[in-house]
């Protein structure tokens, strides 16, 4: 019997083979072979083009993600604690959750111009309601008994927050982080495609106009690799550390 790891590896090989076989059969520029894509990827890395644009996109991701998470956690906790505030802002959230990403992006560019801060703002507005809702639900689910314990033992506000509240919110924050990264990656490319002259989105737009599928796929591979690296090197260790007490 194959172990699950071996099975996963095997399935990956099959996927690549399928791609290879299909590319050779079709034999057309619109579907290059994996080897050609890897060659292009290497060229792009060597020329410095890919690191440059990927780096810029990553910076935008970091900025908009941090802002959205920070604001989202703050507002989410507030709404989770305060029922009246929640009742007041609930329909705002519903509206913002349902505005299509493209609309906010266009509006931000129209209102603020084709500038960096408008791009970041558009991403933040798209992501923020998701974070707020997730953290709000987490705050509502806080264990009242533990909070009572903290109060009766006279815990300071910071002690209560970091040792009683935050560990309970952790799964919700991680959920918001994971879904957030996935969402922001996709939105940020559209933002760059529509109104920036650098970044992955801009490059993809360029390759589209040239019908350069090999480059598009090369950038996609770089993209997937980065997301996996973030998951394995940052998120997983964070999870393991915070959840070590679980059975």
């Amino acid at each position, binding site marked *: 019997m194959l172990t699950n790891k071996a099975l996963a590896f095997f399935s990956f090989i099959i996927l690549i083979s399928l791609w290879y076989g299909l590319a050779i059969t079709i034999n057309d520029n619109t579907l290059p072979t994996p080897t050609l894509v890897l060659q292009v990827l290497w060229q792009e890395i060597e020329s410095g083009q890919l690191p440059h644009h990927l780096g810029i996109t990553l910076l935008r991701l970091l900025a908009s993600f941090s802002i959205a998470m920070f604001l989202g956690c703050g507002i989410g906790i507030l709404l989770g604690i305060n029922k009246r505030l929640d009742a007041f802002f609930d329909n705002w959230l519903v509206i913002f959750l349902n505005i299509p990403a493209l609309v906010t992006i266009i509006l931000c560019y129209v209102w603020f111009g084709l500038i960096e801060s408008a791009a970041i703002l558009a991403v933040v507005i798209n992501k923020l309601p998701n974070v707020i809702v997730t953290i709000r639900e987490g705050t509502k689910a806080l264990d009242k008994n533990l909070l009572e314990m903290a109060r009766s*033992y006279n815990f300071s506000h910071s002690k209560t927050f970091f*040792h*009683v509240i935050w*560990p309970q919110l952790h799964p919700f924050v991680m959920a918001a982080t994971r879904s957030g990264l996935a969402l922001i990656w996709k939105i940020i490319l559209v933002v760059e495609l529509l109104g920036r002259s650098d970044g992955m989105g801009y490059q993809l737009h360029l390759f589209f106009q040239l019908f350069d599928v090999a480059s598009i796929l090369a950038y996609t591979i770089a993209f997937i690799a980065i997301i996996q690296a973030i998951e394995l090197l940052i998120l997983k260790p964070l999870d393991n550390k915070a959840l070590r007490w*679980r059975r």
Partner: protein
Amino acid sequence: MTAIHIDIKSKTYTSPDSRQHTAIANLKLLLPDNEFVCLVGPSGCGKTTLLNIIANLDSQYEGEISIEGLHSAPKIGYIFQDPRLLPWRTVRENIELALPAQQPAEIIDSLLESMQLTKNQNDYPQHLSLGMSRRVAIIRAFAINPDILLMDEPFVSLDAPTARQVRDLLLDLWQQRPHTVLFVTHDLREAITLADRLIFLSAAPMAVVSNLEVNIPRDQRHNELTIENFRQKLLTEHPKIKQLL
């Protein structure tokens, strides 16, 4: 540290169908220094409400709680019905969190030893039995050297042998480190085993029905027959407490 005066003029609450209920009316209690007092009363009579008022978790009442000679907020060691340990902190970390920073470690070591938990100090609460978790909660309460210890039926839902074991450990610990204790229970045998004084409370609105001393010497409390005889005597001499059990 000296006696604690409890004087609650009224505590009302509003039920979900928006009717006003009086939970406590004119309740006066005096808890002498380092006495072990058991509150006995029917379930739902407001005993937990009373403890929450004393612990300053509930300030919606008229009246006053005062500790003679103490002008700052009293330190409360509250042992809840459920252990209320933080699952993401080990036994030792849970106790440490309740203490002020720079507290010497010796007190935790000696308390862990008294409660026979030294071996488990680095375990997470999920790996403890219920009896062990209760013991950790007891240590946490004693560790802060409280002005008053509040215990809200802490041995409920333990099987009889475990409950007896934890009860004995608690008594030993309390005799080493005397504190004023207010212990809520509806089990008269348990109350007689533990208490210097029994206070019987009526159903809502809560009031004191009887205030009786338990004069069994401490070294005879392990004898179940003595406890049972005392209980029978109590019930014959004070027939009105029968309805409260």
